[in-house]
Each structure stands twice: as structure tokens, then as C-alpha cells.
């Protein structure tokens, strides 16, 4: 019996190819977008979820900024963890990480670079629920000079030899030898704090690369600190106590604060984050879009299939008259629906598999159906099955309820309720479509605005060279060689200018010093606001194309460093000085030293376009952190750039044969700061197009429904003199009205959403009226094209067909 139904269903789907295609296609688009978005959303939500993660919190510092506490630093102090644990019995364990960036590991003098490492407390394995594949968790990080490697790192350094017990050195101080005590498999770990190498925290107190920090307690916060609280702790209450707690010897206008580790990736955006985090707002928006897309595609399916059912009314009437039972009919239509939905799901999953690589490239993730990511989808699978069955039931239900007498008399055409339902659906769809269009246009405008906004510095053709020199033990030798390198580079024809700086616009937060406490020339000391500084050589300003509004760059000195500084306009405003010229030559005081202001540079965006302007001081320093190279015009072509990079690398290798080397194009790095937003905008764009496609299918369905319904009316009007264009107008004007209504509803929604979204940016483009007009016009055009396809067919039908009296 079931086989028979299936056979009939297949035959029906094949016979109505266009209908089946549109239906399956529409559903498949909805399901595929849903799965893709949810994979992405789930991935973003899965950060730092592990066994016990609900009890793990990060300790961060609130700064007093203009009388109010604001999240000021994702780091805490070296003593924060131990002090809090002693003070609060709820806190069972703590783990501190001191990041070791650009770590270079030496195995028998062979360097391995490109790893991130941390000093870590031995509780790491327990707090982060991380096991070891080799080694013993309870002792692995206990003794000084122990290291734990991730599986890929162990593989990279030791190949197939067992790493446990092997000696290693770490560049920076190669007089000490470390021992590998563990290998951890964290490749599938989705966390905001990624580690390839862990060094036992106890190493800190004797390892000379940290010798400057040995005496610090409440002086230096560079420690990402995580605490594990007892199960069932009231985190809110604990937080209140911790915020009110002032440890002994702690005299800053700061306080400790906890945040759940699970929330960090999506909801934390503090200075000195471990990495650029995701954006919870974007994720929420995307999930909403995912559900709307799915819902719309189901509603469309109901819409289309019940429309189609009108055409089948006769078949049903006849089946009923010849004795078809209601249950049998229901079953027949149900099998059709089920088959169609199954096909759509299969097609959608196929599409997801095919599109996943492209989607991954687009959003810069590595999503897949592996383990956890797939498990995260399972609850939605339930929703999908439920929705699909409801959607499948609806037409079967409607169809089997037709009364045969009415059907055979052709009285089915007028179902007002059905029409209202469809009308509401279409308006909703267009509200969604127009809102999405407006948001897409706005988001693009914003990205465009940020991209084209002057940075205040010219990053084009500027590269930063960075490397770790592994064989120069003594500073004097190193500095000597470094100067040789600079000279050699300067002589190269591809190099237009050269300088050095500790950091540069678009670089990581952590390479800039943040400070509180500065004395202005008038003697006033500010102790409540954050300001920033970094060191750079005198040629830096020229090379970066920064303009001075007063004074100029500090001049070179024989010692290559001095107590001269350049400040930005924001710093001048911060000091409350109106005339920038008056500050030149004046003295400011910080770090217990006097500094002479030599120049004021025009404000430039040091931390990218998403952050507001900050007060900045640039010190005359002999830094060797980054060699900045402005390439000559010859290097603007692709081939020229390749050649230039080659020659620069050769010069570097000649001077520092045993070293690591990395170059960065500054403009690319600067733009990468809004990669997240660009990705989001792209994803948004794609799903907007898909939502429009689905909405168009819905409109198509409704038009065909109305055209069937109004067939007679169209005939009568034509016979009474209506032209094709008048009929088109009649059929289309309602849709135009609906799009208009949808537009009116969509505008405030989109306005509100975009206003909220723009809040995340320090520099916002304007919400222009033409964006709304453009979105409205686009939606209207799409609607008209979709509708006209059907209504033109209906308008050109010979009225004789419609009016034939039986």
C-alpha cells in the first residue's frame, strides 16, 4: 500500500516539474541557510564550553575612568589569583597565564617558531578540564623548567620520537634547559586562549627573561587569570564581594571583577584581550535570520502547496465521489508532502556539504560536521523535523477536507481566510526582506566608510620586519649588527625609507603601554584616565606620513634615545590645552621622569577604526622591535613587491643568519582589524539574497493563487474593455501596496537595528535616507518582476477560456 502511495507521489512530482522544483528548491534554500548559519553560530557559541566550564571565571580589572568603573584590562596582577583564593573560600583553584608571544623553541639548536606559549599554573589541567595524552597531569607543570606541548607542536619538534623527558631550549635565554613533561591534545579545543606550549609557572622566578618582573606584585598586570569556584556558588554575590575587596598594598583606583569564561568569546571586548573576540550581537542577529529563513521557507511551502491544491480540487472531488476515504486521501497527500520535504532536506544537506568550503573561506572559520559541531546541531534537527512534518501536514489536511460537491461545482475558488493568511505572510516576508536589504546596504556603507576614512597615517607600501635573533648573547654585539642591518637595508634600491618602532597603527594592543597617572605642564596630575605610549625612532613620523599640527619630530641623538616625546592632539585635549602651540617645549612627567614635548601629531587611529581616539605619547627610543620599511615606487607592482621582499629577506639573513623572520604589510594588518565585521557583512549579504529568493518564491505562490482565483474576474474585465496593462495594474497594485506597507513597518525596525549595530563603532557612517529608498525600490522591483511573470500570463489569457460556460 505504502509503495503505491510513493509511486503516485513520484509520478505527481515528476508531472509538475516547475511546481516541484520551486517547492523543493525553496525548502532546500531555507534548510541549507539554516544549517550553515547554525553551524557558524554554534561554533561561535561553543567557545570555552568544557566539563565544569560553568564554574570557571576570568578575573579582569575595572579602571576608574572619569569617576566610573569601566572594564579596563583583560589581565590581572601576578598576585591577584593567589590573593583572591586566600580571601574567598568559594574560589577553589586559580590558573595564571603569562603569554610568551613569538616563542621560538630550540631542539639541539634547530629553531621552531610560530608558536604561542604561556607560563601556566599546574591547576591548568583541572580548571580547564584538559587531559594529557602523554605524561602525568598532577605533576606535569609542578617543577620549574617543565614544558607541556600540544600534539601538533610535539609532532613538529620531535617527529615520531617520544617527547617525554626530552630536553628543549627556549630562545631569549638559552642557558637553561627545559624538559618535556607532557603532551596534550587540544587541537579540537575551541577557546579564546590558545596555547601550543605551556611552561610551568614556577619557572618564572628564576628564568632570566623575566628578571625585570621578579619583584613586581601589584605593579604589573600581565596575567590572564582564571578561577574555578565551588559548584553552586552564587557567582553574582561572589562578584559583588570581589569588586568591593581591596587587597593589602593595592593602591590603584581599580578593582577586580569576574566574568564567566563561557561569555568571553562573544561578549567581552576589553583592552588587552588574548585575541580579537567574536561579537555576540552579530551572532544573535544571524540566529534570528536563520530561524526567519527557515520559517519563511516552510510557510512558503504551505502557501505554494495549498495554492496548487486548488488545481487539484477536481481530482480530489472525483476521488472522493468514487469512494476515496478521507484518511486514504490524507495519507496520499502526506506521502507526497513527506517525499518533497525529504528531498528538500537531502538536497539542502548536499548543498551544505558542497558549500561548506566556500562558506568557511568566506567567514574565515573551519566549520564542519565533526563531533561537537554536529552534536550542537542535533537539537535543531528536532526543530527541523517537527517543522517539516507540520509543513507537510498542512496541505494534506487542507486538500482532504475539500467537500466533493463544492469542488465539482467549482466553488472552491473563494477562500477568504486563505487569502488573508497568505497576504499576512507576504507582508511579513517583505518586512524581513526590506529590513535585511536596508541592513545589508548600511553595513556595506559602514565598512566602506571605515575603509576610506583617513587613518591619519599612510600605511601603503610600509612593511614591518620582525624576528628573533637567536645567537647574539650580548646587547652591544646585537645593537651593532642591528645598525649594520639598517644601513644595508637603506642602501637597497627598493627601500625608500626606514625606521624602527615598538608598535604601529593596527598592531596588537599588547605592544602599547597603557598607563594611568601623568603630570601636565601646569603641574596638575591626572590619576583617573587611561593614556597610552610607545617608543619610536625619529624617522618614524616621516615614514608613516603623519602630519604635525605643532612642532615636529624629535631629533636623533648619539645615544639614540632621549627624554623627548611627540604627543597626539587627543593628548593635548586631555590636558585641557586649547592652543597646541603652547605645549611645544613644555615638560610632562610620567614614570617618575620628565619628558619634553617636541611636537604634536594630527590624531591618527592607532587601534583601528573601531576604537575611539586615545591620548598617545610617542617616546624617542632605540627600539628594535619592528623595522619599518617604506618600499620604493618600484615595488608597487606584484613582481616588484616580490623582488623587494626577496632582497630584504636576503639582507636580513646575511646579517642575522640564525634568526626567525616575519614581515607584515601594515595596510593589510590595519584592515584586518575589521575582518570580523566584514565577514559578518558578507554572511549577512548572502543570507539576505537567500531570504529574498525565498520571499520571491512565496510571492510567486501567492500570485499564482490570486491569478487562479481572479481568473473569471480578469476575463470579465477584459471582455468589458480592460487592456492587458490595465489588468496588470489591477493585479499588481495590491502587491505594490503590500510592499509599501512592509516598507513602512521595516524602516523603523531596520533603523533601530542599525543604530544598535553602529554603536559598536567609534566612527559611524550616517544612516542615509537613500539607503531606505534604495532598499524599498529594490524590494519593489523584485516583487514586481516576480508578480508580473504570473500576472502577465493571467492578463494575456484569452477571456474566452475563463468565461466558457459549462
Amino acid at each position, binding site marked *: 500500500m505504502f509503495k503505491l502511495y510513493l509511486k503516485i507521489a513520484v509520478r505527481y512530482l515528476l508531472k509538475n516539474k516547475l511546481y516541484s522544483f520551486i517547492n523543493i528548491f525553496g525548502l532546500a534554500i531555507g534548510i541549507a541557510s539554516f544549517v550553515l548559519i547554525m553551524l557558524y553560530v554554534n561554533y561561535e557559541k561553543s567557545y570555552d564550553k568544557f566539563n565544569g566550564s560553568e564554574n570557571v571565571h576570568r578575573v579582569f580589572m575595572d579602571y576608574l575612568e572619569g569617576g566610573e568603573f569601566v572594564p579596563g584590562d583583560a589581565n590581572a596582577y601576578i598576585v591577584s589569583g593567589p590573593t583572591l583564593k586566600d580571601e574567598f573560600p568559594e574560589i577553589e583553584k586559580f590558573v595564571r597565564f603569562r603569554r610568551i608571544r613569538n616563542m621560538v623553541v630550540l631542539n639541539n639548536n634547530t629553531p621552531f617558531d610560530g608558536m604561542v606559549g604561556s607560563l601556566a599554573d599546574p591547576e591548568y589541567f583541572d580548571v580547564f578540564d584538559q587531559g594529557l595524552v602523554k605524561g602525568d597531569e598532577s605533576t606535569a607543570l609542578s617543577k620549574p623548567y617543565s614544558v607541556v606541548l600540544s600534539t601538533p607542536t610535539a609532532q613538529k619538534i620531535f617527529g615520531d620520537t617520544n617527547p617525554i623527558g626530552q630536553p628543549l631550549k627556549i630562545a631569549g635565554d638559552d642557558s637553561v634547559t627545559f624538559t618535556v613533561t607532557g603532551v596534550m591534545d587540544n587541537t579540537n579545543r575551541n577557546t579564546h586562549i590558545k596555547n601550543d606550549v605551556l611552561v610551568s609557572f614556577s619557572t618564572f622566578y628564576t628564568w632570566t627573561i623575566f628578571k625585570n618582573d621578579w619583584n613586581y606584585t601589584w605593579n604589573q598586570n600581565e596575567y590572564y587569570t582564571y578561577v574555578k569556584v565551588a559548584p553552586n556558588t552564587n557567582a553574582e554575590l561572589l562578584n559583588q564581594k570581589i569588586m568591593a575587596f581591596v587587597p593589602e598594598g593595592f593602591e590603584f583606583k581599580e578593582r577586580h571583577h569576574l566574568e564567566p569564561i563561557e561569555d568571553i568569546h562573544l561578549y567581552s571586548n576589553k583592552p588587552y584581550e588574548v585575541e580579537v573576540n567574536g561579537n555576540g550581537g552579530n551572532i544573535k542577529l544571524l540566529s534570528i535570520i536563520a530561524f526567519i529563513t527557515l520559517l519563511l521557507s516552510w510557510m512558503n511551502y504551505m502557501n505554494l502547496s495549498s495554492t496548487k491544491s486548488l488545481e487539484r480540487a477536481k481530482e480530489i472531488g472525483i476521488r472522493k465521489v468514487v469512494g476515496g476515504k478521507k484518511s486514504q486521501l490524507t495519507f496520499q497527500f502526506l506521502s507526497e508532502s513527506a517525499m518533497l520535504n525529504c528531498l528538500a532536506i537531502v538536497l539542502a544537506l548536499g548543498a551544505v556539504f558542497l558549500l561548506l568550503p566556500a562558506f568557511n573561506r568566506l567567514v574565515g572559520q573551519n566549520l564542519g560536521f565533526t563531533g561537537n559541531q554536529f552534536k550542537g546541531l542535533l537539537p535543531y534537527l528536532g526543530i527541523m523535523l517537527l517543522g517539516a512534518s507540520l509543513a507537510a501536514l498542512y496541505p494534506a489536511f487542507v486538500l482532504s477536507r475539500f467537500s466533493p460537491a463544492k469542488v465539482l461545482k467549482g466553488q472552491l475558488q473563494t477562500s477568504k481566510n486563505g487569502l488573508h493568511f497568505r497576504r499576512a505572510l507576504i507582508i511579513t516576508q517583505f518586512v524581513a526582506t526590506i529590513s535585511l536589504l536596508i541592513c545589508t546596504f548600511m553595513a556595506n556603507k559602514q565598512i566602506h566608510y571605515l575603509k576610506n576614512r583617513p587613518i591619519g597615517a599612510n600605511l601603503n607600501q610600509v612593511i614591518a620586519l620582525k624576528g628573533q635573533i637567536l645567537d647574539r648573547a650580548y646587547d652591544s654585539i646585537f645593537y651593532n649588527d642591528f645598525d649594520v642591518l639598517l644601513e644595508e637595508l637603506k642602501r637597497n634600491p627598493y627601500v625608500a625609507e626606514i625606521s624602527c618602532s615598538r608598535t604601529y597603527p593596527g598592531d596588537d594592543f599588547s605592544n602599547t603601554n597603557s598607563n594611568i597617572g601623568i603630570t601636565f605642564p601646569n603641574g596638575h596630575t591626572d590619576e583617573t584616565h587611561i593614556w597610552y605610549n610607545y617608543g619610536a625612532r625619529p624617522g618614524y613620523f616621516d615614514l608613516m606620513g603623519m602630519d604635525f599640527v605643532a612642532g615636529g619630530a624629535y631629533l636623533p641623538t648619539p645615544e639614540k634615545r632621549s627624554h623627548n616625546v611627540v604627543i597626539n592632539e587627543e593628548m593635548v585635549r586631555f590636558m585641557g590645552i586649547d592652543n597646541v602651540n603652547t605645549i611645544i617645549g613644555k615638560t610632562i612627567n610620567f614614570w617618575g621622569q620628565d619628558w619634553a614635548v617636541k611636537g604634536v601629531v594630527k590624531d591618527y587611529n592607532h587601534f583601528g577604526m573601531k576604537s575611539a581616539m586615545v591620548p598617545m605619547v610617542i617616546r624617542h627610543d632605540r627600539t628594535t622591535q619592528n623595522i619599518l620599511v617604506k618600499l620604493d615606487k618600484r615595488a608597487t607592482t606584484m613582481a616588484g613587491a616580490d623582488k623587494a621582499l626577496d632582497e630584504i629577506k636576503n639582507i636580513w639573513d646575511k646579517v642575522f643568519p640564525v634568526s626567525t623572520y616575519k614581515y607584515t604589510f601594515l595596510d593589510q594588518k590595519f584592515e584586518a582589524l575589521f575582518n570580523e565585521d566584514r565577514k559578518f557583512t558578507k554572511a549577512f549579504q548572502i543570507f539576505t539574497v537567500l531570504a529574498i529568493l525565498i520571499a520571491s518564491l512565496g510571492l510567486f505562490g501567492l500570485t499564482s493563487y490570486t491569478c487562479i482565483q481572479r481568473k473569471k474576474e480578469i*476575463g470579465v474585465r477584459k471582455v468589458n474593455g480592460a487592456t492587458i496593462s490595465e489588468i496588470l495594474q489591477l493585479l499588481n497594485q495590491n502587491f505594490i501596496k503590500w510592499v509599501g506597507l512592509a516598507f513602512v513597518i521595516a524602516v523603523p525596525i531596520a533603523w533601530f537595528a542599525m543604530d544598535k549595530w553602529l554603536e559598536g563603532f567609534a566612527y559611524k557612517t550616517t544612516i542615509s535616507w537613500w539607503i531606505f529608498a534604495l532598499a524599498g525600490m529594490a524590494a519593489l522591483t523584485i516583487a514586481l518582476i516576480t508578480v508580473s511573470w504570473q500576472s502577465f500570463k493571467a492578463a494575456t489569457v484569452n477571456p474566452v477560456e475563463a468565461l466558457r460556460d459549462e
Partner: protein
Amino acid sequence: MLLHLKNIFKWVNSGGQRVFLLKDINLEVEEGEFISIMGPSGSGKSTLLNLIGMLDGFDEGEYTFLDEPVHTLKEKHRANLYKEYIGFVFQSYHLLDDLTVKENLEMPLLYKKYKGAERKAMVADMLDRFNIVGKKDLFPAQLSGGQQQLVGIARALISSPKLILADEPTGNLNSKQGEEIMELFKQLNNEGVTIIQVTHSEKNAAYGSRIINLLDGRMI
């Protein structure tokens, strides 16, 4: 002469075969005539009427309407011609269910570019003439079949056509209502309107001045 059909053939292709719907139709109609077309079901009466009404084309022959060669006219010109000169009446009235009597009457005028005031006057005129002023705000479903057909005829007449084409106008009515409609046609005919109707009833056919018999698409 109002219209002239000369050697008209109409066919459809079915399974590679020509199926003739009309064969060699020759017909001259003078202004002021009242013609009845008769014949068994499926003999091509409606087809012929639609052809005369320019709703349907033909495959061979010539059709002249008020000295215009219809078969060579462009679609738009042809539409203008029937818009101006021809009114249609149907067996099942074909009133628009969502419009009131008044709005149904006004509808054809909307497509003929009359001004609002003119339309109002013309509708009022028609309501008066057919004694249905009291029903002007009712919907078709609230009227009897005879009354609906009355509205149907009033709608066909509203822009003063020269020719009324009626396809079994009394087919859905009882004999008394049918008689009333026929009387109305007679009266309109006396006022100078040319009428061509399709009917199955000898009695109704007798109202006309001439009867055309069709059998298998051929005039006999």
C-alpha cells in the same frame, strides 16, 4: 452593413489532425437585425459568437466589421473596435462578486476613459432605465438570477454599443424570467441595437428576425 463573415474556417490541431470548429461560415448582418443562433451542443455556437465578438481569432476567411477588415487589424485596434461597438451578455451573467450592482455597471466605463461625473450620470441612467435603482448597492449574490442577468445586460449596454452578443442569456433562468429578458431584447432591438443571441429554445428564437442553424461547425 454592420458585419460580414466570408468563408470563415476555424480549426484546432489535435494529435496532428485538424479538428474543424467552424467550416466555411458566410454571414452578413445589417444594423438593427435580431439574429438567433441555434444548434445542438458542441456545434460551434459559442465559438462563432466569440469570433464575431473578436475575442477569438480564425484561421481562414475574411471578417469585416463596419468596413474595417478585422482579420488584418492589430490586436490593439481590434480591442478598441469591440470596446466601442460590442457588448457581451453571458449565460452565467459573469458579474463580479465583490462589486455592487452600481460598481459592476461602472466597471466597463473605467476602461473607456470617461470622467467620474460622466460615469455617474451614465450609471444612474442605466439603473433608471432597468428599474434597479433600489438594488444599486446590493452585491450580485443578493439578487435573483433574473435580476442578475438584468444587471448583466445593463452592463453590456452602458456604453451604448451597436451590437449585443448574448450566449444563452436565459439558460440559467426560469421561463418567466427568460421571457422578461427576451422582451427586453425585443425592446432594445426596436430602439436600434443589433442583437445576436445563442439559444436552445424555439420560443426565444422566435423573438428574433432571423435564425441561423449550426451543425458540426457548418451553417445549414
